[in-house]
């Protein structure tokens, strides 16, 4: 009897629901910028930050196994202007980095993680000039982020809402307003992946991707891709589209696309295997 009671109690104790938007308080606060993290652990922002630095990184992660929870606070770099080469949160050659609940604005790259096993989730990015989220890392996931108004860099580099390298899952993100600098003649990408051979790209909402001049706009572009799954993404562009634009593309037929809505591109789903339930309305 007692054992049953104990088991019930333990199960009840373990069943405490995980909060959707819990504030992280047991953490090491980041109190100044630029900040460099050299010890693994949980870090958080307890206030909004702004910087006018035009180079370097607002937060540099120099070790593995680090979580940054911004608690919905803002990391702002807009004051550096369109010519900035500063990044918001950056890690190079590190493993198992998590960045969540951050508002990152006005950097060249908003969040830039290289290495492996990263998680980038529930962040809001806007006004970043070249790439909203960059994750180069086997076994990483980018999910639940909102990436707005990416582009406008002075270097005339084609902007990308989300860019990943290697096998990365990209789930349930909203990417809106990726616009190449006027006069640059550059392309623009909602989501751009490279060497994604086994990843899942699902449930993303992508709209307002605008290239400049005759350059193509890409909703989801997968270069050097393999057996990826493209599932129930919504890729939409209002108004007339550039003839070279394509909503979704794979390198070859190893990639499968199913249940996607494509609306307003000149090109629909290219080179992927049609897994059915895709609805494509091309731009006239």
């Amino acid at each position: 009897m007692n054992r049953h009671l104990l088991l019930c109690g333990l199960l009840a104790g373990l069943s405490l629901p995980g909060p959707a938007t819990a504030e992280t308080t047991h953490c090491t606060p980041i109190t100044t910028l630029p900040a460099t993290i050299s010890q693994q652990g949980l870090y958080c922002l307890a206030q909004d930050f702004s910087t006018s630095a035009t180079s370097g990184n607002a937060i540099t992660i120099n070790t593995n196994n680090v979580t940054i929870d911004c608690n919905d606070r803002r990391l702002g770099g807009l004051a550096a202007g369109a010519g900035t080469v500063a990044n918001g949160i950056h890690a190079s050659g590190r493993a198992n980095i998590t960045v969540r609940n951050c508002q990152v604005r006005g950097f060249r790259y908003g969040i830039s993680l290289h290495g492996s096993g990263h998680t980038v989730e529930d962040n809001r990015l806007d006004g970043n000039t070249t790439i909203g989220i960059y994750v180069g890392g086997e076994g990483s996931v980018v999910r639940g982020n909102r990436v707005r108004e990416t582009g406008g860099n002075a270097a005339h580099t084609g902007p990308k809402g989300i860019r990943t390298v290697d096998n990365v899952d990209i789930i349930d993100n909203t990417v809106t307003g990726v616009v190449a600098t006027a006069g640059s003649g550059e392309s623009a990408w909602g989501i751009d992946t490279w060497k994604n051979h086994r990843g899942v790209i699902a449930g993303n909402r992508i709209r307002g991707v605008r290239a400049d001049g005759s350059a193509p706009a890409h909703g989801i572009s997968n270069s050097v891709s393999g057996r990826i799954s493209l599932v129930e993404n919504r890729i939409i562009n209002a108004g007339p589209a550039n003839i070279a634009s394509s909503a979704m593309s794979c390198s070859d037929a190893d990639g499968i696309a199913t249940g996607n809505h494509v609306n307003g591109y000149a090109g629909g789903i290219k080179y992927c295997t049609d897994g059915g339930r895709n609805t494509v309305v091309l731009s006239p």
Partner: protein
Amino acid sequence: MNMLRAWSLRVAVAVAMVAAVLALTAPAEAETKHCTEIAAVPYRITAPGHYCLHRDLQLASTASAPKNAIYISGASHVVVDCNGHTITGPGGADSGAGVVADALYFPTVRPANNIVVRNCRLAAVRPGISLHGHGHVVEDNHVDGAMGAGIRVSGLDGVVRRNRVSNTVGWTGTSWRVTGIAVTGGIDVLDNSIDGVTAAAGSDDDAFGIYVSSQPNAVIAGNRIRHLVKDHLGAAYGIYLDKPERASIHGNRLSNPEGAVGGVFCDDPAEPGFEQYPAIASDNLFNGFLGGVVGCVDGGDNVMQ
């Protein structure tokens, strides 16, 4: 030895029971603590930052000048987290909004952008939440018994998600027809529950679960809508889209035993350009509607009972 084992087991059981009680009584959402407390309403926010409630609040009736409970005036980058607490309005025509950031109706102030409203329970207010501007997030709220509209958001790049909107009632003094969630501009409406939208008696008015106007590229997905009640000559619509340029309507579940005209109703197909930029509706389920997908491109897997 046996006594020691029995004592250890009793201690373990006691600890487990305390843990169980704590688990069962803990709030579903963790509380936001590092914030400026809103200790009374009406409350005016004029600076960016995090604001929160630590207790339930009551909005008094002010018949001569209805007050909004929380009014965000010209400030962007504001988070309002009610931590699950309730703001109760007086109800009726004397009530103001629950949370408002609405330059549209207060044009002398700067637009408020990037507003987050979460974990609020709003009762008997008019409307529940009303935001105008860009990049807003309205999530995990419960609006009950609002007048006119439960949640109203206009602007670009916003999202209304995971909210409960119940028992919304019409009001003859409003220019807005009664609506659970009304969005304009470019707002995603995702995973909300709308239960009970009733037009005012004698109004001959329509009732809408979700009303969408001028929504280029928006996604309306995963919502649950039921109990829409029109008045007399009016009509009831599950999801109504006015000029739905390339909207995507997917995976919504609509049930209306009271009967309704359209499940997903894309209006004004004669609008110039509409044919070129239609909305797509797929995988929606309609129960108790006269029409399923009306005026939109049928993307398949829509089921009508």
